């Protein structure tokens, strides 16, 4: 479970994120929805302890991220905005490196790699060097690397960015299976359909702050729109000039 409470982040004079609060529960998929530059990535970086918040707190499974960042990292698997792989290592070696960094034994890493290869349809890629992988293939390896330790909390920052239809579909399937396994899945997207198709809970972020929270139905009701896309447009304030 991930709980953000009054999160804020300043970069010099720019207030990138202010007063962001939400709870992402276990066995649920929570979508952070907002236009580009709304502060989604900054928020996710604060949750994965890579950025220190200027204000507010993050708790992951009840652990304060500011006090015990390493313990929080151990309970999170995060696909970050940057998802570079080591081109001279094979997919399997890339995944194993992260497993070793998390203190896993060789056997555990092998089992985990086999399980993730099944989940993400990575099988034929495993023993090839990642140099020359397609964007979708790189994405799958990056996700497998982030999940090698079977974390209870999964953070995915714009996971479908730049992926083709087939890869997107298999990724959605993987997210559903993570939910079935009882994980807390928090992912960000600027694509409304993406969120509508997957999420149990939506957090709409606009200009660094939360403008609406709830189930897709609740969001539609709050915005007074039948269509989720209209609700998104209204709630992110992207169409304030319209009547």
């Amino acid at each position: 479970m991930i709980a953000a409470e009054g999160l804020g982040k300043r970069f010099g004079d720019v207030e990138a994120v202010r007063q962001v609060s939400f709870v992402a529960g276990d066995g649920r998929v929570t979508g952070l929805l907002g236009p580009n530059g709304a502060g989604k990535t900054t928020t996710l970086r604060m949750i994965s302890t890579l950025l220190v918040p200027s204000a507010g707190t993050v708790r992951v499974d009840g652990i304060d991220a500011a006090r015990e960042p390493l313990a929080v990292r151990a309970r999170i698997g995060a696909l970050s905005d940057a998802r570079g792989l080591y081109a001279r290592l094979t997919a399997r070696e890339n995944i194993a490196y992260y497993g070793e960094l998390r203190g896993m034994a060789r056997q555990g890493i092998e089992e985990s790699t086999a399980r993730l290869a099944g989940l993400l349809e990575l099988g034929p890629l495993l023993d090839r060097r990642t140099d020359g992988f397609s964007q979708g293939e790189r994405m799958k390896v990056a996700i497998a690397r982030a999940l090698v330790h079977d974390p209870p909390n999964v953070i995915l920052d714009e996971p479908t960015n730049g992926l083709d239809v087939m890869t997107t579909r298999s990724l959605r399937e993987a997210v559903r299976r993570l939910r079935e396994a009882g994980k807390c899945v928090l992912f960000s997207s600027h694509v409304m359909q993406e969120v509508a198709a997957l999420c149990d809970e939506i957090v709409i972020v606009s200009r660094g702050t939360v403008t609406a929270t709830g189930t897709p139905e609740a969001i539609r009701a709050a915005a007074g729109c039948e269509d989720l896309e209209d609700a998104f447009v209204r709630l992110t304030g992207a169409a304030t000039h319209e009547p």
Partner: protein
Amino acid sequence: MIARVLTVFLKEVRDALRDRRTALMVLAASVIAGPLILVLMAQFVSGLEERALTRKVRMAGAEHAPALVNFLQRADVEIEKAPPDYAERVKAGRLDAVIVVPGDFHERWLAHEETRVELVYDDSRTESSPAIRQSERLLDAFNRETAFLRLLARGVSPSLNKTVKVERVNTATPRQRGAAILMIIPMFAIMAAVLGGMTVAIDATAGERERGSLEPLLANPVSTLAFALGKWLAAWASAALVAAVTLAGFVLAAELYAERKLPSLLQFGVPEYARYLAVLVPLAALTAALEMLISTYGRSYREAQTYVSYLSTVVAFVPLVVMFSGGKEGAWQAWVPVLGQLVALQRILRGDGLSAFDALVPAALALALALAAVAAVARLLRDERIVFGRS
């Protein structure tokens, strides 16, 4: 902590071993730099020795000085007639020294009047100096003999003419003379330590930023100090390996080639090799750590490479400063990184003893500074501007 450091180290080593740039560096160091330079130096030095050994002078107008010619012949010196354009040839470096005898030499010499010869040379060419000195010595000897005979003919003791007799004692052993010319080995050894860790140091820091693999890496529950230590150990290993391979090239070349050509001048065998490594391995720790620290500021491999090239320029300047400052050797030199190592390496090559102070102070200092640089890298990896800064 130690297990994580080892994990990072092994990953970086594996990554580097698959990198063609590392292979090229090792190849360039071992095959090209060491032996090639040594062979060229050996050629140069043996050329000097040959010129000094052949007792030959070039004369213009030898026919005007039968007495001098007679003296030289008695001294077993071969006399060669200088070509008419000797002055240009000396200027161009094709002749080392020419003794020019004027037309009235013999008459004046017989009349015991002041007699002159000209010695034409260009002392800006080091390789000419043995021939110049030889000609000078021979003319000197001729002078002394003439004076000796004339004084004797007048019934004066020749020793009156010599109030102070100078006896030359050259304290340089043949080995030291070789080392003076072979300053180049310490310089190459130090540069090998500087260049050898570069690829790994840059790839493990700026390379991670460029690939976008730094952010996910740091999301692992591992302290940045463990990352910095593991990466540094890999860069250090690479630098030490390149230095070892380069020097092995020197040993091999000295064994196969130079030992035969200049047995007296160059001794760079296994004992010297081991002492060299003892000096260079701690130095490699420092250069690898500094390169990492500098590269951490680089956003791309190329940018970091530019910064690191400034560092190698500074290091390359140290031997030059020593050569031109002409400063006396002293204990203070041990306290200056790179300079301390340079002095130690020179002493080893000269066959001088290396005191514990000379060996341990530079090594301890290098390791301490290296650890400080690694700690600085660990701190930088916690800096948001470094991890996420793209502009």
